[in-house]
């Protein structure tokens, strides 16, 4: 088998922090190489080195047997390395087609950009792969999943020989994930090398050939996937034994806390009614674009309701803004924590107290010592890996950032918790902890809504599962249901009557 890329003893330090101590990786043509590890293990840094975004401090990199040294992404791209990023690196103001061809526009002899041809080519590519995209859409209007699809198109179009997928499916629904797998398999058949980073352990077997596991900046295991059990993979990743699945007792639901009736948001929600009860975790499933995030936004006062009522503890409330929602006792852990969840440059303690500055101030004046004590408290309570309460939130890994978002709401003590994709982009260990927090909240009598595209997670955590489809509630399933039942409601394969109506 032809070895495309060999990395030996790669090192990288950022100031005082060691991101990579000794990373080794070797990828052959025609294989899907899984790169696994917890957040902060150094996967992203290693891949940034391969893609030319970051220069290593030490180690050697061989491409087809000869040493290479990428100074910038263009170097890597020229040699044939492309990357589908976890965080979108697209130009939001441009269209899907323009982004796919960005930097490689076909030109007329006079230097014009061949816009129409680019749109046609992009449309053909999108059609081939059945993506829910249109070439002329502007990228800023797309969801995180949509942006991911554009990045995949872009990498395919550029005809690279090594493709890096950095958690491509973390924001995709089941059908889209299948599509990504199909694409990855096609790439493998075309004898391309694929490096695939994922946190979803249930995905591994579907696509992986070989696996390299990183822990604390060093490669701790490398070899064929068949030789490893999932339990062994996890213990390599975390360096100790962890349960692969999460299980716990059902909660006894109490009184209704939030009752939404007949919610309409133009073009997004149609006659949605939902009751969240004290002490219960309500799961919410659905495909991308089914209206789950839109429902959270409507309940949280981000998007105005056209009609419908919301009652809290039996009293009708008008929630016209996030401020009103927060004051009424509703919290929203958003799917996009880096933009809507945290002020990244500000310290952990400031972020943790952001939604409840009233509690740390008198007549508008802040008690800074109290603020730092609270920050330190939550760092200990939620086991946030940080240097201290004054560390900027942006310096933390994904899972720890998510814990800071949760700390922010815990300090506000709301009655209703809305979690939108709470485990996106966070590692196994942190996921279990997030589930524990949700469990604890419900145990203390909060009403919890958990929106997730990860059906296994919903099955493990939720007391019941509500399914949405095309802006409507398409059904409700009890704890102990099956993925098939959920998918049937999410796609509603069995009721054409409604589509016609």
């Amino acid at each position: 088998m032809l070895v495309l890329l060999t990395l030996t003893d790669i090192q990288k330090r950022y100031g005082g922090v060691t991101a990579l101590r000794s990373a080794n990786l070797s990828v052959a043509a025609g294989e899907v190489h899984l790169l696994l590890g917890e957040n902060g293990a150094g996967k992203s840094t290693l891949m940034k080195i391969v893609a030319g975004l970051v220069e290593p401090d030490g180690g050697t990199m061989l491409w087809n047997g000869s040493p290479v040294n990428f100074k910038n992404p263009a170097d890597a791209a020229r040699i044939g390395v492309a990357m589908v990023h976890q965080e979108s690196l697209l130009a939001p103001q441009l269209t899907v087609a323009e982004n796919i061809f960005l930097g490689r526009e076909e030109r007329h002899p006079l230097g014009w950009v061949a816009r129409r041809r680019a749109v046609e080519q992009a449309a053909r590519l999108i059609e081939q792969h059945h993506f829910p995209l249109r070439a002329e859409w502007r990228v800023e209007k797309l969801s995180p999943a949509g942006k991911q699809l554009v990045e995949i198109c872009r990498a395919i179009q550029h005809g690279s020989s090594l493709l890096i997928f950095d958690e491509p499916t973390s924001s995709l629904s089941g059908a889209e994930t299948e599509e990504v797998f199909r694409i990855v398999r096609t790439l493998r058949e075309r004898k391309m090398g694929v490096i695939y980073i994922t946190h979803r352990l249930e995905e591994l077997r579907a696509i992986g050939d070989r696996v390299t596991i990183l822990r604390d900046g060093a490669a701790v295991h490398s070899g064929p996937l068949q030789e490893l059990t999932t339990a062994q993979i996890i213990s390599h990743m975390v360096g100790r034994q962890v349960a692969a699945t999460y299980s716990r007792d059902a909660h006894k639901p109490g009184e209704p806390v939030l009752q939404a009736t007949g919610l309409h948001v133009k073009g997004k929600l149609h006659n949605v009614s939902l009751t969240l009860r004290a002490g219960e975790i309500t799961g919410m499933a659905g495909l991308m674009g089914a209206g789950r995030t839109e429902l959270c936004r409507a309940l949280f006062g981000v998007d105005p309701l056209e009609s419908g009522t919301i009652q809290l503890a039996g009293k009708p409330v008008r929630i016209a803004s996030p401020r009103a929602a927060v004051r009424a006792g509703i919290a929203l852990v958003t799917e996009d924590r880096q933009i809507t969840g945290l002020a990244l440059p500000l310290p952990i303690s400031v972020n943790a107290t952001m939604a409840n500055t009233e509690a740390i101030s008198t007549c508008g004046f802040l008690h800074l010592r109290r603020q730092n004590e609270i920050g330190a408290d939550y760092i200990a309570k939620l086991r946030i890996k940080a240097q201290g309460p004054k560390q900027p939130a942006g310096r933390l890994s994904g899972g720890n950032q998510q814990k800071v978002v949760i700390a922010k709401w815990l300090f506000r003590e709301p009655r209703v918790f809305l979690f939108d994709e709470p485990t996106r982009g966070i590692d196994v260990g942190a996921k279990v902890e997030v589930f524990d927090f949700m469990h604890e909240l419900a145990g203390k009598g909060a009403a919890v809504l958990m929106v997730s595209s990860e059906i296994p997670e919903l099955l493990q955590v939720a007391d019941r599962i509500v399914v949405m489809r095309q802006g409507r509630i398409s059904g409700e399933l009890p704890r102990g249901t099956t993925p098939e039942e959920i998918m049937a409601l999410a796609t509603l394969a069995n009721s054409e009557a409604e589509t016609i109506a």
Partner: protein
Amino acid sequence: MKRLQRLLPFLSLIVLFISLVIASPHFLTATNLSSVVRQTAVINIMALGMTVIIISGGIDLSVGSILGLGGLSGAMAMERGVPIVPAVFIGILTGLACGFLNGFLITRLKIAPFIVTLGTLGIYRGSALILSNGLPVHKLPPAFSTLGEGAIFGIPYVLLLLIVCAIAVHILLEHTRLGRYAFAIGSSPAAAMYAGIPVAFHTTAVYSIGGLLTGLAGMIEASRLMTGQPTAGQGYELQAIAAVVIGGGSLRGGEGSVVGTLVGAFIMGLLSNGSDLLGISNYVQQVVIGAVIILAVAVDELRKRRVV
């Protein structure tokens, strides 16, 4: 190393000060230093307000015009027989009203601050010219000059005013909820909104504070000139922004400090005073100050890049 780089503007100020002491015998004299203080106080007080605005992720291009309109309205009040102290407050309140209008337009019409204040830059300046028919107001009570030129125990009043304003703005930024929200809104407007912070209210408050301080600066300027000039303050907005930026403020929002801004304003003040003393032409001065602004920001960017 990191701390050293953060102290860089401050160290530059000290180096500049020492160089000027060596280069010119006329620099380290009470008269010259107090004139530097008086010259920079106006820009300094404006720049304090601009610091809060820039931290919140905004910008105010209209402060030069607010300074003109504020000073003029105070002077016109005095000309019509209003006693000095209430007249000074009229000037300050005019500034506050202008700042409030900026904030109101930015938050209600949801237009970028750059555009709104570019518009009000013209509106406030035009209003000052209309009110005064384009003519300066000269008939001011002689005692009014105390504000800009008076001193107590040899310390100029303007320096005391500047210190009071600086302490107040520092406390506002670091120890109040308003300041905290300014940082939050500047760092991430979406996260601030999702945390339930009343973003529109606090944005308006931030511009109002900027206007208030500019109104005060306008009265000081009027007192120093003993004239209500409808054209006073032209181009000051750029100096105020430059002071904030040299002192480490970021136009992307979320960054800036009172101490930094003071240092920034004094660096510019010393550069222009030093050039005067050394006989360097006004033309060269402009080139030097422009280069310093770019250099300061470049160094700051390098510092940030290395840390991240």
